[in-house]
Structure formats: C-alpha cells, structure tokens
C-alpha cells in the first residue's frame, strides 16, 4: 500500500504515432481520476531516454512504462506487455546515442540510487513515427483508450493500483498552447 508507483508515458507528440505512450497515460489519468483515488501513483510524460531514466524513475518502488514500438510484423494498434528481459526493442528504451534502459537501470543500481524494483513495460505497435503530425493514425488512435483500460485492469490485478485518495500528475514535455493537449502542469 505504501509503494510509490510512477506511470511514465514516453514519446514525441509531434511525430504522428510516436506520442502514443503519452496519449495512453493521459487516458489512464482520466480513468484513475474517475474510478479511483490513488495517492501513491504519479503520472508523468517525457520525450527522453538514456540517463534521463535515472532522474525520472529514482525514488519510486514500481514503474509502469508506456511506449511505442514498430516491429516488422506488428499490426498498428496492437498492444502488449514487453518482457523486461527483452528491453532493447522499444523506440526509446534502446539507444544508439545514449545508454539503453537496461544500462540505466544497472547504473542506478551500481550507484546505490533508489530505483524501482518492479518495472512493467507496455507498448503499442505503431504505423508512422517518421511524419511530423500531432494526431495518431486511425488504427493507433482507436486503440489508445482500449490500451489504457487494459493497463489499468492489469495493474489492479497485480494490486499495483488500489483505491486511495488522489492522483498527481507532472509534465516533462512542453505543452503546446492551443494544441490538442488537454492537461496542464499541476
């Protein structure tokens, strides 16, 4: 009950489907506000990777990461949980320029930084992350609420989400004024 959990949406909301992780956590935020009052849950969104994971995740006991993935045979809109042993393939969790997610976790451990002991990674197959655009493609867009509901159900199953009092939200990614974003930093 006292475990602190972060739900982190990753992506870039100006690259069509790339922002799906962010869209999904916004939806999760909607659901939790309506159906639950969870005081130990923090929802964040970020367009970052590598070392930044250490700063983003430090201090939490559990982390739920939502990101986009684009595999050869993937069907856009299909979503699933990624086996943490195979962390590399998601868009932001592997890196040429930076350290990858697994390395960030190990580095934090080596440095004695309090890092989540339990991590769940949910990804959605996307269609287009190479075109500038502020809206997802139709199949991806339709799957966003379904994925959010499935993640919430999954987290309830695992008892990572319980009823409590409130949900906090923070924003890392700048919000476009007058754009499609519904939330502001609290």
């Amino acid at each position, binding site marked *: 009950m006292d475990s602190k959990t972060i739900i982190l949406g990753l992506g870039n909301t100006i690259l069509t489907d790339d922002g799906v992780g962010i869209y999904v956590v916004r939806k999760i935020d909607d659901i939790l506000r309506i159906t639950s009052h969870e005081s130990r849950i923090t929802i964040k969104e970020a367009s970052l990777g590598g070392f930044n994971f250490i700063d983003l995740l430090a201090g939490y006991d559990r982390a739920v990461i939502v990101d986009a993935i684009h595999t050869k045979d993937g069907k856009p809109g299909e979503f699933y949980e990624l086996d943490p042993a*195979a962390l590399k393939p998601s868009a932001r969790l592997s890196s040429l320029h930076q350290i990858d997610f697994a390395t960030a976790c190990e580095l934090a451990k*080596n440095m004695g930084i309090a890092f989540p002991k339990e991590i769940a990674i949910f990804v959605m197959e996307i269609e287009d992350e*190479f075109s500038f655009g502020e809206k997802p493609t139709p199949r991806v867009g339709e799957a966003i609420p379904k994925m959010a509901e499935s993640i919430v159900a999954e987290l309830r199953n695992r008892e990572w989400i319980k009823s409590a009092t409130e949900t906090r939200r923070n924003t890392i990614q700048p919000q476009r004024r007058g754009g499609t974003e519904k939330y502001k930093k609290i």
Partner: protein
Amino acid sequence: MKRISIDPVTRLEGHGKIEIFLDDRGDVANAYFQVPELRGFEKFAEGRPVEELPRITSRICGVCPEAHMMASAKACDAVYGIEIPSTAKKLRELQYSAFYLGDHTTHFYALGAPDFVMGPDAPKAERNIIGVIKKVGVEIGGQVIKTRRECHEVAQILGGKPVNPVNAIPGGMSKGLTKDERARIEQIARDGVEFGKFTQKIFEDVVLKNKAYVDIILSDPYTFPTYYMGLVDEKNKVNFYDGKVRVVGPDGKEHCKYAPHEYREYVAEHVEPWTYLKFPYLKKIGWKGFTGGIDSGVYQATPLSRLNAADGMATPLAQAEYDKMYKTLGGKPVKHNLAMHWARIIELLYAAERLLELVRDDEITGPEYRALPTKIPTEGVGIVEAPRGTLTHHYWTDEKGIVKKANLIVGTTNNHAPICMSIKKAAQGVIKAGKPVTEALLNMVEMSFRSYDPCYGCATHSLPGEMPLEVLVYDKDRNIVHKLAR
C-alpha cells in the same frame, strides 16, 4: 494482456544500417550507411506563427533540444530584424554552455570512454559505462550523474523546466536571472570546471598514457582529411552560440568565413538515389563524389573540426588543452577522427569555463532581457554549433510573421558524407581477406561512426536520438555473412 519477448533490433523497422560489401577475395569493396528519414517538417511548419518555431523545433529531438531552440530563436530574431539586448545574448549563451557541458559529458562517458577504458575488442556486455565505473571507480558514475543533473538544473532555473526548454523567444529570453539564481549557477559552474579538469585527467591516464590507444588514434583507418567547419568569434576562437562560420582546408588554410545569412552561397546539398538524406558540400569547390582531400567539397562539422577551424579556445584551461592536443597529434589541422573524443572533452572544459565566466558577468542579472519586435517580418537565418555540428535554421514568412517556408541543415547531416567515407575507410583498414570477421573488428568499424556522435534523432527526425544500429557484411554474391546488432 499478452506478454512477449522480441528479438532485439533485427526485427525492428526504422533503424540505422551499416552495410559492408566484400569483393571476390574477401576485402572490403564498399560500405554504405543508411537511416530512415523523417517527412514533412516544412509542411508542418508552414502556416504557423514563426514565434512558435523555437518551441516546436526544440521538440524535434530529445537529445539536443537547446540547440534547435537557440538556432530557431536566432532565426526568428533575424526574421524580425532585431538586435537582442546584451543580457539576453549572455543568458542564452549561459544556458547553452550548461547544455553543452551535460551533453558532451554523456557522450564521452557513455559512448567514447568505454572503447578506450575497456578496449575496442572488449566483450560488448562490458563495453559500456558500467564497465567504465567498475574499472576506473564508482565515483566517476556519481560525477557524471551529478554533472548532468546540475546542467538540467541550470535549464530549470532559466527556463522553468529541466529539459525541452521554451524560454528563448524572438528578441531575447522570456525571463531574467535573479541574484540568488545567479549564485546557485556560479556554484554549479565551479563544480563543472572541476569536473572538466577531472575529465582531462581521465583521458590523460587512460588514453594518452597508453601507447596502443594513441597509435589507434593516429592509425590510417581513422585518418581522414577533409575541410573543417566551425563557428568562431571575432578573434577566431571557438564559440558555440554566435559568430561567423569559418571553414579551413586539410592544409589548415582558411577557405571561407561567412555570416549566417550567407550560408547558401557557401553550402549546397548533393542527393544520392540510395538514401533520402542529403549530403551537404562546399559550393565553391563542388561535389566530387565520396572523396576527401583539398579538391573535394566534403567537409566535417564536429568538435574536432570546430577546433581545427578556429585559432584557439576563448578560455585559459581549454586553451592549454588545445595546445597540448595539437602538439601531441602533430599540429593543425588534426585529421584523425578518433581525436574527436579528445576535442569533445576540451570543448566540455571550455563549456564549463564559459558558464563560469558568463555567470560572473554582472550584466547577466540585467533587467533588459528582451527587445520587442517592431519591424515587418520577412526572412531570417539562425546558426549555432550543435554538439554534433553546425546547425542552420532558415525561415521565410509573410508580413504577418506566418511561416511560408522553412529549411533546416542539422548537425549530423553536415557529416553524412564523411561518416559514410569514414566507415568505408575503417572497414577497408580492419577487415581483410582471409581474416575472420569478428565482433571486435565490426566494433572497430563502428568506432569510426561513433566518434561523430551521430544523432539521427533530428538528421532523420525520428525516434529522438535513439536509433538502433545494425552492421551487415555481405559476400560477393550479396549473401549476409555477418551481422552485428545493437
């Protein structure tokens, strides 16, 4: 929900690819480097008020948002014909110096150092920052994390958020600096200078005192003469934020020096059928194919090329290291690509010193940090040095400031031709007929690529800075005979 495991990289669409083609004997005939490209930035920018672009372009890439924001804000200043107040200029450069310090720290410790500390042929699982801290000491990890965090803190103080800033605006900055904030940044800058000195010491101990590594740096597969580009101040010293673009030849002589708005007289872009990415070259010399040297218009825009293109560093400690590098590596210009790591940490020290210099300048807390645009907007170019090369933003607007057209030449794109050529040269140097192609050899090919710190997050505008890479070796019949994925 179903839970699955996925093979790494190889099954992913949209990753970078190095392809090496062998001839009948098994020597390297050719090597290509390919990445997917992002589409539609121009269309995306069209029809927006130009003042939105510094905020939007800072989101193109999760790796160097400050570089895009600064180049974009400078282009907006030019669109409106504004000379920004001195305090604004200093604040921008202050923020930019902190960004450089953090970014170069990441590259050196996470990507550059592992090859040298662990050795280029060390197993892949050890060739990373964890290996480095296990070998050199856990305090390094702490220093790296602290420096990065403090650089983000400077961005937070100046712009209200640690990353993806939005505070550089047409005419200056959105807020000034208070005396308390200034004191905190001064403390961070002092720590940064110490960290910069510490980094030179690590390089000295690990690389320079090891003859084998110095020999690799000086070796032929990693030696590649071209023209060198970099932004310089009025004394021809390296500057990241402002000045003129100077280009020197492989003979060290100045080829040209131009103001941002003149860039199209000096730089043109070549197109190849096998990639969407363009290949910029020096217009007055011309595109002569994938070849280096004084007769080819190919140039590099990297930390090393910035040092080559300048007459020195504007701060004392960095200048001393600058002199040492050229003395050690045989004078100017240095043509050895792996020296890019050395140049990068000299820039790291300069960034820290410059941060300290600027925060100690009394004008930094001045009240005039923005000039309001009053002229009719038209067209403007903004250039800064991104950590990965000269970054150019060019906008055209109507009289209301609505974007009609936009053109970007991003840092890594400058280096596209040199990267392709460096890969081929390294491949030809290390992969030989009759010798098995090992992972260690392929890593040595990749080292030539990695020294550029290529960031295809914005060169291709995709998967912000996080492009997986695959190295494929083909025999003469185009069968894949070796594969390395990361």
